[in-house]
């Protein structure tokens, strides 16, 4: 932090006024630039997901005589998955507080809990996918199922990548301590993890809860 705050004034000049932000007072500190850049990436990721959501909504009724969402989805499984991801988002928030306090033990514990809840989520999702394929409802069965596996599978791939990232963050905090660049990476990771939960809110609400409504109640 200290190196960021110290922007040396040009030789012989007066000290710059303490007015920063909105472009005044020179370029923003690196923490802001890193966070903002990653925020833009996340928004583009959300836009990618929105096109998968649109594809699912458009193709929802094209079951090609195959099984429908109402016959396939198990809402209890979805509820447990939702709980796991919500808990892991919460423990990720706790981890960012522990990082703020420079507390190695709580950082590692909170990140471990985040990882275990995430692992439980992805295990349940893979189990659901395997059981769907075993019942002959794989992605090649109908346009509806193709769009379902693309949307939900893409979210699952993101969670899996997030778990790998989480592991590297734990190792880096352990090996390198709370160095500034490691904390910047962790800020990006926590943004990523919270954003994935926001996507999941859309998935469990629209794909699972609205998707399994009786057909006559659908818009």
């Amino acid at each position, binding site marked *: 932090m200290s190196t960021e705050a110290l922007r040396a004034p040009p030789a012989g000049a007066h000290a710059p006024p303490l007015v*920063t932000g909105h472009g005044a007072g020179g370029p923003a500190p690196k923490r802001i630039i890193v966070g*903002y850049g990653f925020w833009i990436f996340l928004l583009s990721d959300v836009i990618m997901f929105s096109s998968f959501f*649109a*594809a699912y909504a458009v193709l929802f009724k094209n079951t090609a005589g195959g099984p429908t969402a109402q016959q396939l989805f198990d809402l209890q499984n979805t509820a447990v998955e939702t709980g796991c991801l919500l808990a892991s988002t919460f423990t990720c928030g706790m981890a960012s507080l522990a990082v703020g306090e420079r507390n190695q033990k709580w950082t590692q514990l909170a990140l471990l809990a985040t990882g275990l809840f995430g692992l439980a989520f992805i295990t349940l999702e893979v189990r659901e996918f395997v059981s769907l394929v075993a019942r002959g409802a794989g992605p090649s069965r109908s346009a509806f199922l193709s769009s379902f596996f693309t949307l939900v599978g893409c979210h699952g791939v993101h969670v899996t990548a997030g778990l790998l990232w989480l592991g590297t963050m734990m190792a880096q905090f352990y090996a390198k301590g709370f160095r500034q660049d490691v904390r910047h990476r962790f800020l990006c990771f926590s943004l990523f993890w919270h954003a994935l939960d926001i996507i999941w*809110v*859309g998935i469990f609400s629209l794909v699972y809860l*609205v998707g399994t409504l009786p057909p006559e109640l659908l818009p």
Partner: protein
Amino acid sequence: MSGGHDFDAGSSVGEDRAPGAESAGEHTLGGEVRSYVLGLALAVGLTAASFWVRGTDLVYGPGLAMALLVLAVAQMGIHLIFFLHITTDPDNENNVLALAFGVLIVCLIVFGSLWVMQHLNHNMAPMQELMQMQR
């Protein structure tokens, strides 16, 4: 440099905030934990409400889909405020503007696709007739 803020005299003087970062004001650890717990409680409440609305017959049937959509948007808002710390503070302006643009594109893609495809489906001849015509 003096008067550099004339163009937006109403906004605060200070650094912008990185998305996901806490506001720069005074914070106690206990207060921050409480804020996360409140966020979790609200998120769990809205999730439970979604599943309850799906199962109940107290809600007018054709309105169920819209009710679930509203609950989902509300929960996304809770996540943004309590977990991603996207707020309406002046130091958060850049993050909110980027988010607003993202939401605009998302709405264009989702509602635009649904709108166009619905009209296409409506105007297309039934598949049987189409195949007859091609013979």
